[in-house]
């Protein structure tokens, strides 16, 4: 493992925070509505600051969370959940019984999209002995599955200030547990870039 903090690294010991509001505080009376800040300690956190932007006591993190049980409904994913990370064919993105029930025009529409990402907000972390095994409960008569796949959701990203994070090299490296392979880090970089690079329909019209 490198003695440096890098994009995609798994860390332990960092709290995660989620502020919650009922209304935006546009005037003094809004403060009566109150607010909450949820604090918890995830087992692991993932660095989402680009490697070159780690430092100056700031780092972007996101908690490592359990995968959705329904991912296992798709045999293509169930075989290896990291298949959710790169682009895929439209037929691979849904369970076969869902694809078969699509009307022809829906199939055609999806086929025209071609090779692309599914779950653009999510990135799966490969099973690892370091990760606690947990049970995935499945609906109906399907057997529960024990797994140690985990994932991150880009929407959960938050900022943490820690004065000991000065540069990627001059940082509390004792909290680093795992790092991605070069290929997996590249896949994460590509996917999060795509997550932010999507152009909304209303802007596409202006660009034409």
């Amino acid at each position: 493992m490198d003695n440096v903090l890098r994009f995609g690294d798994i860390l332990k010991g960092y709290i995660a925070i989620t502020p919650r509001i009922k209304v935006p505080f546009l005037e003094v009376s809004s403060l009566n509505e109150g607010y909450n800040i949820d604090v918890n300690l995830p087992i692991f956190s993932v660095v989402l600051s680009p490697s070159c932007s780690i430092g100056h006591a700031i780092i972007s993190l996101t908690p490592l969370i359990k995968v959705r049980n329904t991912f296992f409904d798709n045999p293509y994913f169930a075989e290896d959940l990291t298949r959710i990370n790169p682009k895929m064919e439209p037929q691979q993105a849904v369970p076969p019984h869902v694809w078969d029930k699509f009307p022809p025009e829906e199939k055609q529409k999806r086929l025209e999209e071609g090779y692309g990402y599914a779950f653009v907000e999510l990135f799966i972390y490969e099973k690892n002995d370091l990760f606690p095994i947990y049970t995935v409960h499945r609906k109906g008569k399907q057997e529960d599955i024990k797994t140690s796949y985990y994932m991150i959701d880009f929407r959960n990203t938050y900022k943490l200030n820690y004065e000991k994070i000065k540069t990627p090299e001059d940082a509390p490296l004792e909290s680093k547990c795992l790092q991605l392979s070069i290929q997996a880090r590249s896949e994460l970089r590509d996917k999060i870039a795509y997550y932010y690079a999507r152009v909304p329909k209303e802007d596409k019209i202006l660009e034409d």
Partner: protein
Amino acid sequence: MGLQEKDYDYDNLRNQGTGSHEELDEYKIILYPFDKYQIKIKLTPSNEFIGIIEVKINKEFLSHKQKITSEGFHDVDEFYPD
């Protein structure tokens, strides 16, 4: 004078070949994509610029643009509820 005619015939024979009237490779034309346009450029065999022959809309580029502005992802979240 007679010699010059012979030289002329010789050059024709050498350049065009027997029974052939092929065009000489004195220039080449390349297509250069620029923004929405496709520019047809005339160059010497050693790639020196001679001139622009034609500027037209690059229809292939438009189709490429349509490709890059497509959704590019599979909307499948509804099939995987938590």
